[in-house]
Structures are given as C-alpha cells and as structure tokens.
C-alpha cells in the first residue's frame, strides 16, 4: 500500500513540475525526456554554483587547519537548501492536502498516508541535498590538497543522508507555523506573493554578492571558526567528517534522528485530527452597502485585475518585469551617474548610451507577460465570459488594458529615471518618450495574439497555466527577438545615426501594434467566442 501511495505522490509531484494536464492524453516519451534533461540542466547549474562556492573555501580552510569548518559550512548550506526546498511542499502535503477525504475513505491506514507523504518529502530533500553534497565533496577532493580516508567519506555520506531527517523536522515545524498563520488570513495570495518576492530578492542579492561573500568567508576562517565552534552540533558535524570522530558522528546522528522521531510521533498521533480539521479564514459577514454602478468595460477590467491580484503565481510570474522595472528605476536614479558617468565621456559610446538603455528597458518590459496567459486562465470559467452580452473584442480589450495599466507606469518610472540621469535632447528625447509606450502595447498585443492562437484550458494550477504555456514563450522570446535588429544595427553599423535606427524600429513596432490589434479585434475575437 505504501508503495502505491508513494508512487501516486511522486507522480503528482512530477506532474506539477512537468506541466502534465488534466486530460487523459499521456505525456509523450519525448516530452518526458526533454523535461528530464531540463531538470538535469537546472540541477547542474545549481551544482556548478555550489562547486564554485566550495572550491573557493576548500583550500584556505584546509590550509588553516579548519577542515571541520568546511564540513560544518557544508552541513549548514545543505540543511538550508533542503528546508527552503521542502517547506512549501510540507505545508501542502502534511497540513493542507486536498485528497485526505478520498484517501481516508479507502481501506488505507492513516499511518501509511503519513508515511507516504513523509517519504515524498524525503525524496525532495534528498534531491536538494545532492545539489550541495556532490559539489562539496568534489571540491574538497580536488581543491583541499588533503587525503580523505574511506571512514571520513563514509561519515560524510551518513551525515548527508541523516541530515535529511533534521531538515524534515525543521520543514514540518515551519510548515505548521505557516499553515496556521495563512489559514486565518483572507488574502493568502498577498502573503504568498510577499514570501515569494522575499525569496526571489534574497536569491538575487546572494547571486550578486556571492563572490565577495565567499572571498570574505575564505579570508575570515579563523573568526568564523571561533563563532561556529561555539555551536556544538555544527562543530560535531564538522569534526565527525573532517577527523572521522565517531563520538561526534554519533552525536550528530542523534541530533538528526531524535527531533525527527519526536515530530513524526506527534504527527502520527494527530494525523487524523489534522487531516479532518476544518480550516479557513474567519467568516466575513455581509453588510449591505450602497452599490456602485459602473460600465461593462470597467467591470470587465476590474474582473481582470481581481484575477491578476488574487493569484500569487500569476502576479509573480507574469508581472515580474514590472517589479524589476520599478527596482531598476530606483537603481538608475541612485547609481546612474556612477555607472554611466565615465561612458558619457567617451565619444563612441556616449551617443549609444540613451538608445541602448531605452532598448534595455524595452527588454525588461518584455518579461512582463500578463496578457499572454489571460485567455487560457479563464479555464473552466470561460462560459461566463462567453455568455455575457458584450462583444468578445471588449473582453479582449479589458485583458490588454490590464497588461498596459500594470506595465506602462512601471515603464514610465524607468523612462523618467533615464531622462533625469542622461538628460537626452532633441530626437532622442522624443524617441525615449515614444518608443517605450509603443513597445508596452506591443508586448500586450503579442501576448494576447499568441494566447488566442495557442489557448490551453487544460491546466491544473494557475501557476502552471502562467508558466508552462506556448503563448508565454512566444510573448517572452518574441518581444526579445524584436529587439535584436536595433541592437545589432546600433553596434554593427556605426554609420547609421542611433536616432534613425530607433525611429525605424519605433515605426516598425507601431505598425506591428496596429496589425496585431486589428487581428485581435476581428479574427481573435471570433476565435475567443468559439473557444471551448
């Protein structure tokens, strides 16, 4: 029974990532292989990043006689990645699973359900752990200049495996806290969005500062040893591997096993209660107020806005470009002079600075793909839009208006920052003001056209609809692809004045805007009316 449950859990997990649909169509072998290769590529990228970090630490720590610190750092990094990688899954699987009623109605012991979920989490942790453990081991073997015995490697493997239990304990506790917190909230999407943004910003912050942080770590090994040496479990873990100390190994394993056993026992004892508990935000009692009347178009626009802001997956994945643009505007204002001051002194580059930045802003705008999944995301609610007494073109216009109303203000922030920092004049000033709105419109109509031509209502989660769709790919790469010719012309054909390149490009994009918009309002609207 456990095997069947585990297979079902892992299958669902795989389906969530690989973009499997609700339809009975089997995923083709080719698609599965491609997705596996993509996963391997992503894991490989993270693995190389980890190797880069640990290879810089191995030699200085080994030379300073702080081998234990290297392995403590490894343990800490591995534990952090595993907890981050599994806490959301733990929340969904242990405390908010939607198939509890179904499974409990079957002749399955509750213990088997819990065990299958915990094993699934264990597999997730194991994969996250491999991203750190393999590169850290290779980096140590290659760069430390020390001979590591079989016993030491055995301890390394044992700790790498048992640390999964410690990670599971922490993930279960964190997930419980998150679940208790969010279950009483009315706006879960806002919390999910904030948490996702914090993780994303922390990731980018880490990536940007990684080299200096690692250099600082490598240089301050002794100081760090003094600090971490005081944290006994980390010290024991380091000693268990670095010196093959069996006492420290036993202590480390105990630290991994005991909390897990305790948490598992509590979860097992309370599983039925957890699985059948009725959660939900406190009921909001309706109080009759004077109702506001608005036009059909305004109602359609508000419907699009409500859908966009209620889904953290839609908001983060499709609206990322707009967020980056606002951040970019601030960076441009604060660091612009320092970044571009020296460039503007060079005669060859000075004239390219404004057009390149304008095109760069357009490239970031291309990351905003709000309109691209806006048709597919209607999903099982499509009947409502189709039964309304409004032309389909109006519904599509509302989708386009949402895209523009989110992206254009963010874009204008960047344009304003650019004008303040670079102070262009004449034709370039006019182009810096005209091209961005024209390009924003282009990203909107391109995404909407792509979705009308490639709709997919066969999705399981909104995030899947927003991320795994042909329309989003076309919108993203299409808008970036459109920027290649002007970039190439600016750099490759120096005889052409930049204002001329941008003028022609603006005219071409404006023409594309008109053509795509006309298609949406006519053929696209007909397609939308006939979708099923």
């Amino acid at each position, binding site marked *: 029974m456990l095997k069947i449950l585990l297979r079902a859990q892992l299958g669902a997990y795989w389906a969530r990532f690989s973009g499997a649909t609700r339809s009975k169509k089997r995923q083709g072998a080719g698609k599965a292989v491609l997705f596996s290769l993509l996963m391997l590529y992503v894991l490989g990228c993270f693995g190389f990043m980890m190797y880069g970090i640990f290879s810089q630490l191995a030699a200085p720590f080994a030379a300073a006689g702080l081998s234990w610190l290297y392995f403590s750092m490894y343990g800490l990094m591995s534990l952090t990645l595993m907890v981050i990688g599994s806490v959301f899954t733990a929340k969904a699987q242990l405390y908010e699973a939607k198939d509890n009623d179904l499974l409990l109605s079957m002749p399955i012991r509750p213990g088997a359900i819990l065990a299958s979920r915990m094993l699934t989490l264990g597999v997730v942790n194991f994969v996250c752990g491999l991203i750190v453990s393999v590169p850290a081991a290779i980096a140590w073997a290659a760069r430390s200049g020390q001979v590591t015995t079989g016993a030491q490697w055995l301890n390394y493997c044992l700790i790498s495996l048992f640390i999964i239990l410690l990670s599971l304990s922490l993930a279960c506790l964190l997930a419980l806290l998150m679940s208790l917190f969010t279950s009483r909230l009315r706006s879960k999407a806002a919390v999910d969005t904030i948490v996702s943004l914090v993780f994303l910003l922390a990731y980018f912050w880490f990536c940007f500062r990684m080299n200096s942080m690692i250099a600082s770590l490598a240089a301050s090994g002794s100081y760090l040893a003094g600090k971490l040496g005081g944290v006994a479990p980390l010290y024991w873990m380091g000693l268990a591997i670095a010196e093959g100390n069996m006492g420290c190994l036993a202590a480390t394993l105990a630290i991994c096993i005991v909390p897990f056993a305790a948490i598992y026992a509590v979860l097992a004892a309370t599983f039925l209660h957890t699985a059948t508990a009725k959660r939900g935000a406190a009921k*909001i009692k*309706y109080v*009759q107020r004077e*109702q506001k009347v608005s036009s059909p178009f305004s109602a359609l626009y508000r419907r699009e806005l409500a859908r966009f802001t209620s889904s953290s997956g839609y908001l983060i994945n499709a609206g990322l470009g707009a967020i980056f643009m606002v951040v970019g505007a601030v960076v441009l204002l604060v660091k612009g002079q320092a970044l571009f001051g020296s460039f503007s002194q060079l005669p060859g580059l000075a004239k390219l600075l404004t057009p390149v930045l304008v095109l760069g802003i357009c490239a970031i705008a291309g990351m905003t793909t709000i309109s691209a999944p806006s048709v597919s995301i209607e999903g099982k609610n499509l009947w409502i839009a189709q039964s309304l*007494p409004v032309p389909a073109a109006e519904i599509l216009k509302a989708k386009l208006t949402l895209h523009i109303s989110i992206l254009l203000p963010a874009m204008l922030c960047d344009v304003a920052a650019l004008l303040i920092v670079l102070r262009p004049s004449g034709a370039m000033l006019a182009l810096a003001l005209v091209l961005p709105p024209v390009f924003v419109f282009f990203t909107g109509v391109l995404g909407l056209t792509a979705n009308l031509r490639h709709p997919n209502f066969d999705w399981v989660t909104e995030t899947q609809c927003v991320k795994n769709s042909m329309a989003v790919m076309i919108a993203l790469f299409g808008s970036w692809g459109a920027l290649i010719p002007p970039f190439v012309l600016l750099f490759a054909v120096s005889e052409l004045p930049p204002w001329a390149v941008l003028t022609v490009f603006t005219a071409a994009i404006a023409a594309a805007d008109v053509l795509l918009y006309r298609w949406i309002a006519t053929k696209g609207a007909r397609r939308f009316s006939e979708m099923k």
Partner: protein
Amino acid sequence: MLKIDHLTKTYGDKKAVDDLSLHIAPGEIYGFIGHNGAGKTTTIKACCGILPFDGGEITVDGKSVKTDPIGCKAVTAYIPDNPDLYDFMSGIKYLTFIADVFGVSKSDREERVLRYADTFGLTSDLAQPISAYSHGMKQKLAIISAWLHAPKLIVMDEPFVGLDPTASYKLKEMMRAHCDAGGAIFFSTHVLDVAEKLCDKVAIIKEGRLLESGSMEEVKGNASLESVFLELEGDENA
C-alpha cells in the same frame, strides 16, 4: 421566445445534435430530458451562443443567435450544469460584476440582490469569497445572478443538482413566477418527477435526435413521465 429550427452540431464524425427543432413560447417552462451524452448540454450551450453550431437556426426573442448573439445574450440567462464561478471574487462582487455587464440599474440591483439572496438564505455569505462556498451555495449564487438582470429567457442545465430541498422548492416557485410574468424557461433535468410536476412542455432527446415533444399531457398521457421515458428509450434500443 426560443425557437430552435433544425439544429445540427457535430464533433468530428459524431452528430451530437441532429436536426432538432423546438419552440418555447413565453410563459412556458420547457423540460429537456435525455440520458447522459444525448446532446442536452450541446443544445443548451448553442441556445446561449456559447457553442457554434453547424446547421439550423436558433432565435431568442426574435433575434438570431448567429447574427445577433449580443442581442440574444442580453435577454438570456444561462446556468451551467457545474457552477464554476470566479473563485477570486466574493459573492457580492460577482453579482455586481453581472449587474454591471448587463446594465442593471442601481435601485434594481440592490432590491434584487437582497430579495433573491434572502430567498436562498445566502445574504450573510455574500461577502465571503466564492472559493469558500459549497457546491450548493455556488449553485444558489449562479441562480441569483441569472435572475438578477431580469432576463426574458432562462436556460438551465441540471439546475436542481446540489440544491437543498428548501432551495429546490424556492427555485421551482421562482421558475413559475418568472413564466407567469411572461418569461420562458428551458431546462434539462434527470429528475423526472420534478419535470412532470413543473413543466408545461417536455422534449425527450436521444443520441442528438428528438424522440418526443409537446405538452406534458400529450407526451405522457395517463402514464408517468418516467415510464414514457423508459419506454421510448427501450423502443429505440430494440
């Protein structure tokens, strides 16, 4: 009010609806009966302008669904078999959205929301997100949204599924009141007892073709609707 003439709809090689003709007059509650996959939902969706069809003509209040779909939708309300509403809205926001799109005046919407929500005991839940609603509550909200814009024609696919007995009773009352006021209702159901007691006219469909239609008395005579339905199904199978 609703005129279906020689409606034909195919999916690939399969004829889902085959030369179907029905006429629903103002004041009539018209029941549509058939086994699963008989073509009821396809017909209903075609009547509401949601599903394009291959042959025939459908007119609502004298307007063609093909040439004037917006005009038809403006006087029609549709309730699907599964009330998949906007989970990201609250009940009252959904009703406001429908009222805005259908151009319901401020005073009318305030009065109707209160009246129908009270009828179904949903008033206190209107501020709740629809995602927190049960299936029955969603069905009630879909019904309220249908009545909210005072349509001339109401088309419903299995409207009683998920409703509690009180709500079913209230819906039947509302249906009768709507038709007494000159409106028309066309609905599909598997609950033959309800159809027998409620409908003025009934049509029985099988594999896309009309087996029988007419007033309840004409179709069932002295027998029960259930026995007539089973007999017709049996004859076709024989």
